[in-house]
Structure formats: C-alpha cells, structure tokens
C-alpha cells in the first residue's frame, strides 16, 4: 500500500491490508478504484467504482469514457492499479470532479495496459498496404542492426583468435 501512497499521495483510503490474510492483495474493490470493464455493453472501457452493492456487484461510473452510472458485476470488471479518493455513493458530478482533478484519463493512457490495448487496436486496423509498409520498415531496421552486429563481431572474433603456432 505504501507504493500506491507514494505515487498518488497519502490521501488514500485506509486499506484493510493490515490483516495478514489481505496482504497479498494489492488492488482492492473500493470506491475510487479505476476498473477496466472487460465484457458486456461497455466492454474495453474504464470507469470508477462508486459503490459496492454486495459480494458480486458494484456501481460503476465513467463520465468521460462513455460508461453511464450503472450496476456492474464484479466478474465483468478488472481492477487497475489506479485508485483515487472518492466518497462512496458519490454522484456523477463528484466523480467528474475527482476525474478531472486527478487527470485520470491521462494517467490511464500512461499505463502499460492502456498502451498495449492501443498497440493491439492499431495493429488490427492496419490495411494490407500498411502491413506491407511495416514489413519493409522492420526489414530495413533489422538489416541495419545485423550489419552493425556483424561489424562488431569481426572485432570480437579477432580478439579471441588463437595465435598461430609456428
């Protein structure tokens, strides 16, 4: 929990990880947690947990990501490492305030997860011509690298060449 506090300030909810059983869990279902909705109508979008209904359900709200405030099954969401201070049951206006104050979208886009999703999306949207251009670019790059490596290898080989016995 100290890691999260260091990144996002100490005004974080007191995490119950002080209990030994919970220590292994780093990401908790808690108001203010940014989640990635993996399936359903709002799949592949992020939202903030606003309220916990029960063991299996949460209320989730993503005002700037096109996710309306609604009840979501916990099995449909995946917890991200981003969590912010949010009073439970907050209205959407409050969620918007917290979202803007903490620049949530920018922080999410910085994460490796978001970058991977973007890369996947770009790769899938390539046309046949784009794929050809990428292939040529990779080829050119690898050839440059290979010639550099070979030129370096020659020097290394010289270093370890056995002296000729007379």
């Amino acid at each position, binding site marked *: 929990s100290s890691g999260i506090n260091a990144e996002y300030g100490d005004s974080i909810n007191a995490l119950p990880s002080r209990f030994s059983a919970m220590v292994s869990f780093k990401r908790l279902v808690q108001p203010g947690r940014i989640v990635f909705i993996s399936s359903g109508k709002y799949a592949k979008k992020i939202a903030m947990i606003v309220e916990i209904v029960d063991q299996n359900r949460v209320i989730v709200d993503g005002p700037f990501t096109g996710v309306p405030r609604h009840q979501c099954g916990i099995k449909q969401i995946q917890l991200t490492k981003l969590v912010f201070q949010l009073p439970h049951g907050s209205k959407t206006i409050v969620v918007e305030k917290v979202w803007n104050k903490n620049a949530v979208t920018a922080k999410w886009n910085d994460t490796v997860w978001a970058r991977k999703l973007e890369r996947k999306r770009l790769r899938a*949207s390539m*046309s*046949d*011509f784009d794929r050809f*251009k990428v292939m040529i670019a990779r080829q050119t790059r690898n050839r440059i690298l290979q010639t550099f490596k070979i030129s370096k290898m020659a020097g290394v080989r010289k270093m370890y060449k056995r002296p000729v016995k007379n």
Partner: protein
Amino acid sequence: KEVALTKTKTVAGEKNGGTRTVPVQKSPRFYPTEDCKTPLKNRRVAKPTKLRGSIVPGSVVILLAGSHRGKRVVVLKQLPSGLLLVTGPYKINGVPLRRVDQTYVIATSTKVELPALPAIGDEIFKRKGKPTKNEKEMFVDNAGDNSYKISAEKVALQKEIDALVVPAVKKVDMLQSYLRSRFTLTKGQFPHEMKF
C-alpha cells in the same frame, strides 16, 4: 386503329361470282380438343452484375486464383459483361490487361487515382473458337498452331494503358514495390480477422 377482319378477293372463273369476302386470318385446321394453358411470357431482363462497394476504378485488389494468384493489381473498370478489367500494371508485376471475376478477388482499401483511360470492351478478350473437325481433313495432320498468341493490338493497348497507370502508381510512396510483392499468409494471420 381498326383492323379489318375480312377482305375481298377476286376469284377467277365465270360462274364463281367474281369476288369473295375472305377472313384475313384463317382459322387453324387443327386444334386440341381441350384448351391447354399457354405458359406466361418470360420478361426477365438480365441485370448488370452488382459490383462490391469496396471495388472502385483504381482500387488495388488481390487476385486469389489463376496463375497470378497472390498478386496485387489495379482495377481499371467493370466491363459490360460484369467482369473486372484489371492490369498489373504489366511493367510492374507481369499481370496484363485481364478480365477477372470479382468473387476471385480480395478488395483492399488502397486506391490509385487513375487518369481518363481509353474505352475498352469485352471484344478484345474474345478468343477464336476451336477449328471444327472437317471430314476431309480428319486424316490430315492438323496439329497446326492452335496455341494462343497475343495480338499486336493487345500489346499496343497494354503499352498505352501502362503509360497512364504506372505514373499514377509511382506518385504514391512505396506503392510500386507493394504491387510487385505477392500476398501471403503467415502464422497467426487469419483472413476473416484481417482488415484489407
């Protein structure tokens, strides 16, 4: 407009009355005992083949069958027969002016801006029929030269069209080398998941 049902005809012979009124259309000599239904007239008109929305004059297309399978070619237009008129261009990948059915083709989203091209129809692609066997020539060695030879007219037309299409291709960066290459599938590539 009133159509006359009868007409008068002059009749030879003194005792035959000179003229006779005769129906214009004679009733048939034989007719079936029972009325049989006549089939309805076939008024079907062949519609021109609907071209896929993704195929447009100038679009680059991947050939899927034939000796040029896998090659990327430029579509020039749709011929009146419904087939696509396609060219490599010949200078770039060896595909001549050719007719191709749109079902044997994957349309890519890449498009080339083509200038105005000369009019081409299906006629130049029509092949001469095989010589019919003649009884007299049955025992004559008629091997002859039945292989297909490209007409000079086609070669000239190809040059003319290449001169128009190749500069349009060269305008786009890397498009020429793209048309020179062939389309292949590698591991992990599934055509139904790929965007062209």
